[in-house]
């Protein structure tokens, strides 16, 4: 595992690493959201996912990063976001943690309910669940961990097998 601390510019660092797992410790800023999205897109592409799947994965990671930075850490400069990617033969696993008060999952709205359709927020977790195969939310008093998995299949699985 390789750990990168504080790097806002994620580009370039991952490419030089030949590890199946990489993690970052990031500030609670908008730049983190953009960097997380970029890193996710690159890692998903390198894992062999097609363009549409790459878009879905990078968008899910973006939404998770928005939740961590905005709702979890509330832009608090003393709080960090950790983001980890792990590639296995079967999955791309992404784990993102914040240091907030812990997401109250019982209060997550259903954005498809008629009374919520015209709400201006509350779609992030819904989009993450739409785009990833497995989504687990683990809230605690010291923060929320969101773990999401995209299964490798199709062209991604083929390229994975070819490289083994």
């Amino acid at each position, binding site marked *: 595992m390789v750990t990168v601390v504080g790097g806002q510019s994620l580009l370039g660092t991952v490419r030089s690493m030949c590890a199946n797992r990489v993690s970052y410790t990031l500030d609670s800023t908008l730049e983190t*959201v953009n960097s997380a999205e970029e890193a996710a897109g690159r890692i998903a592409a390198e894992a062999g996912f097609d363009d549409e799947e790459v878009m879905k994965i990078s968008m899910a990671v973006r939404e998770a990063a*928005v939740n961590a930075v905005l709702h979890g850490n509330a832009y608090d400069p003393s709080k960090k976001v950790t983001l980890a990617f792990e590639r296995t033969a079967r999955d791309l696993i992404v784990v993102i943690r914040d240091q907030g008060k812990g997401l109250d999952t019982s209060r997550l709205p259903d954005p*498809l309910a008629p009374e919520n359709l015209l709400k201006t927020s509350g779609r992030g977790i819904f*989009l993450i669940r739409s785009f990833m195969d497995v989504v687990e939310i683990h809230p605690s008093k010291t923060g929320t961990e969101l773990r999401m998995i995209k299964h490798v299949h199709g062209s991604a699985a083929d390229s994975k097998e070819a490289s083994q």
Partner: protein
Amino acid sequence: MTMKSSTRQVDGVTIVDLSGRITLGEGSVILRDVVRDLLSKGQKKILLNLGDVNYIDSSGIGELVSAFTTAKKQGGELKLLNLTKKVHDLLQITKLYTVFDVKDDEAGAVKAFGQ
């Protein structure tokens, strides 16, 4: 790529040509400011041309909803034009495709205002 916007008038309708990304931060703020500015000037027939918008996140979706409801509350109309596949798919899965009035032909969209 950040978002850019420009406006033009066609038969009493203000067409806002948007390009880039409508995401949390600058993109969402630009969209909000443009729509509020138009409404404050009494330009209440607004057609958002999203043909060059290649990415939108949940914040951007929220901003589109806000623009739509704000225009409606002020007696205006807001329609969407030329959705890319990504934006179209997002509006489908969030069930907003049928909430917005979505057009794919500019002349037809302009004519549809006020009817």
